């Protein structure tokens, strides 16, 4: 399991876990689960397109997820947010389908883009992924106070001069960066689980934001590590374990919160 060819996967999975835990906390806090689901799917189109014209797939991922994020941000200004997100999402997927039908890729390639492939991680990928990860964390650190303010009390944030729309767009860009780096490992469809399950569990366990972020990172790391280990042992897709464990985290968090509430009522 810790053979040389697996080391890259472990390193990247760890970076992915940390970033997904931190960014995911704000995704859950702001209720932007749909956007967090849509942007990775856009990235899928990017990877397919980059494959088609022979560019690096990381470049395609980054460009298309940024386009998706900015598009959702810009169109969301006028239309209803969920409708715009849904339309952007399917447009990106349709482009992905088109690119795939034009290229000579065979099925396993599509499958691994959507559902993840840990064995295909090369050591050349580590540096760009680490840089993108640092970028995400850095952006969150810089934006921390206004982002927190506009997520929890949008009116107060507005009064203090935080433009809620600009904040939303910046946050979507952060999601896009986080997506671009994680798609090659856990797949376009499942980075979403990692950004939702662990942070949701963390939030139902504690109300203190910093503690919740730490907890969310810990849970995300546990999820992604367990997923890789199980995937290695069973040969089943890593995405399946991420999805199942993510939902499991949430169920545990909900259960824990209910149990604590019951106990405090009894006492």
């Amino acid at each position, binding site marked *: 399991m810790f053979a040389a060819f697996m080391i890259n996967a472990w390193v990247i999975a760890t970076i992915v876990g940390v970033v997904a835990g931190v960014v995911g906390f704000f995704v859950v806090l702001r209720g932007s689960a749909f956007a967090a689901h849509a942007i990775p799917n856009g990235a899928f189109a990017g990877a397919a397109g980059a494959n088609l014209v022979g560019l690096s797939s990381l470049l395609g991922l980054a460009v298309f997820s940024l386009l998706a994020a900015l598009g959702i941000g810009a169109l969301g200004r006028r239309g209803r947010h969920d409708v715009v997100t849904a339309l952007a999402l399917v447009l990106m997927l349709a482009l992905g389908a*088109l690119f795939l039908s034009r290229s000579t890729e065979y099925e396993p390639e599509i499958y691994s883009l959507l559902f993840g492939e840990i064995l295909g991680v090369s050591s050349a990928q580590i540096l760009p992924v680490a840089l993108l990860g640092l970028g995400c964390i850095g952006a969150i650190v810089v934006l921390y106070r206004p982002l927190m303010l506009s997520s929890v009390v949008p009116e107060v944030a507005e009064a203090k001069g935080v433009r809620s729309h600009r904040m939303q767009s910046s946050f979507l860009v952060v999601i896009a960066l986080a997506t671009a780096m994680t798609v090659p490992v856990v797949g376009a469809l499942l980075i979403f689980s990692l950004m939702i399950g662990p942070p949701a569990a963390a939030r139902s366990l504690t109300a203190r934001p910093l503690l919740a972020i730490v907890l969310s990172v810990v849970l995300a790391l546990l999820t992604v590590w367990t997923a890789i280990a199980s995937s290695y042992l069973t040969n089943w897709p890593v995405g399946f374990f991420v999805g199942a464990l993510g939902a499991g985290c949430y169920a545990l968090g909900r259960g824990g919160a209910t149990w604590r509430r019951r106990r405090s009522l009894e006492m």
Partner: protein
Amino acid sequence: MSAIYRAVFEPGFFSSGPVRVAIGLGTLTAVVSALVGVFTVIRGQSFGGHALTDVSTAGGSGALLIGMTPLAGFVAGGLIGAGAMEMIGVQRRRGRDLATGIVLGAATGAAALFLYLDTTQGATTGATQQILFGSIFVVDSSTVPYVVGFGALALVLLAVTYRPLVLSSFNPDMASARGIPVRLVGALYMVALALAVGLSSLAIGTILSTALLVGPAATALRITRRVGSALLLSAIIGVGATWAGVLLAYDSYYWGAGGNGWPVSFFIVAAVFVTYLVSGLPARRATTRPGRPTSPATEVWGP
């Protein structure tokens, strides 16, 4: 004139059997999705509708695994997913977002596993492509009766619950004050939604079926404020986009030298998206109130 005609309709378009089936199925699917979609948009459940498509991905790939037709799996998966979302709380807006996300994530995980098993164990090569992106040209004609049956059922459900559904979609509080069983109406609507999603999954693939559900309805609700006209307009847009998609995809076989067509799903989604964008243009020019976008709900119901 005939040159233009020939340029638009490549030879054999009307006499081709698969095209006829595709047009028939596509029309039915588009109508059902567009009508159900109007309520999806009004109720602000685009995310829920989209999540159901992912649940039906799991259902469809699971059905392939045990040797059944994907359509059965699409519908069964959709119904189970709708039930799960209803159970873990879709009432409150914020909780709903999260509940939908969790169901969606778990379902995608299951889909990943089933598709993996499909491709490694079964003889169904191309399962990923077939389930996710579908193709209206290769629909097995033996599933046509089921498609018609499910479509009719969805339409009947909508017709039966129409008045209470309209009221409880716009204003659940007022609806329950008037004695309408809001939960029950919501559950029946979810069944219709699951059926619509199952049908469009078959036609244009699970991950693109959101386009037919949300796109025409959102466009229609941008243009008109009345539910009745929105339903009609939405159906027209949906059917138009589907026909345009089928026609362009058929024509595209003649565009390249390789005889390799472009996917139908891409054209349908592109048509839907362009219509949505264009429908926003007049509003942008005519708008007098700056800023604040108004939701269709307040437009229809509001002051």
